């Protein structure tokens, strides 16, 4: 499932070639074709809509900067998704302390926008995913939703494949527990 099914012949796409040559409008077409999937990925990995918007922007800016290095060995979609995962996981390092961002914005109201979620309310799957601990959420989204293998996740998230497997089972147990309550 997921990313790997899509192996379109986008390499020869004139729009892609134009974007690679530095045409921002051609890149705009690529952006609009892919933004929905990239935003969904960022949202599920970040668990926060505002953060996901920032990350989505970062992904496309980075894609633009790195477009010349895309050689068409894989489908463009696959390349872009891997790039997106790297952008999100790398971002965690900076945002590993959520408070950082508050400090940078220096907005006292930002203190109040915490991650408070009312307990006991019935959760849909999407909400339950966003509630998972970060490590478990990452692996669940990448493996079960996006279709990456444990080996691929291991490389990207710098964890052992066995760790990825353990996190996946932990995530599923938590999700099932919440959804059935």
């Amino acid at each position: 499932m997921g990313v790997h099914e899509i192996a379109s012949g986008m390499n020869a796409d004139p729009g892609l070639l134009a974007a690679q040559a530095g045409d921002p409008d051609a890149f705009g077409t690529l952006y609009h074709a892919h933004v929905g999937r990239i935003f969904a990925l960022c949202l599920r990995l970040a668990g926060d809509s505002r953060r996901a918007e920032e990350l989505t922007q970062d992904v496309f800016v980075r894609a633009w900067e790195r477009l010349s290095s895309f050689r068409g060995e894989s489908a463009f979609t696959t390349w872009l998704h891997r790039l997106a995962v790297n952008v999100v996981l790398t971002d965690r390092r900076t945002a590993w302390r959520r408070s950082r961002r508050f400090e940078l914005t220096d907005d006292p109201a930002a203190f109040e926008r915490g991650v408070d979620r009312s307990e006991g309310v019935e959760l849909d799957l999407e909400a339950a995913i966003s509630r998972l601990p970060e490590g478990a959420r990452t692996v669940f989204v990448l493996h079960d939703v996006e279709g990456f293998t444990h080996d691929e996740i291991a490389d990207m998230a710098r964890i052992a494949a066995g760790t990825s497997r353990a996190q996946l089972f932990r995530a599923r147990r938590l999700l099932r527990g919440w959804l059935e309550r």
Partner: protein
Amino acid sequence: MTCESARNLIDSYVAGTLAARDALALEEHVAVCAECTIDLAAAGSLAGPVRALPRRMDPPGDLWPAVRQRLVRKRTPGWGALAAAAVLLIALTSVVTALLLDRRDATTASLASGAAAVRMVEAGYVEQALELEAALEQGRERLAPETITIVERNLDVIAKAIAESRAALEQDPANQDLRILLRTGHEQRVALLEQAVRLSREL
């Protein structure tokens, strides 16, 4: 069957792609194992809902104008200045220099696959480190000299580790643990630079 091997079969069992003999072995194990019963039930009950999740979701607002603006900014003179700073830093940064040499020297086939493995891991980190080093250079006078010494000492330790991990990965390009070790070196280097840049802005 151990729990570990049972777990490895659960996904294909749920997907219905498991060979009959393995399916039977798994069922036998699950029948006597409470832990694996939980895992099988969780996988089974989540598979459908997960498939039904939307693949695409539109961001609440149109992000393209903001993205577009950042694209333009990257290609204007500001970028040139950054590139100039980068050139200056390359001379000082052994990591980058070594990487560029890798790119040039990757002529023989075996070296090429080692170098390719290194490139796969390092893609992006080098640029990121350069940008951060440029930012740090700008904020340098706001940092106490002792802090700069601390940062540089730790960067040296990390640079040495990166060089050793890279050499090891070049010898054994398929080794996942070496890929993770090299990636960790870069993560730590970038994290330290980010911490230093933050300090130069905040304190």
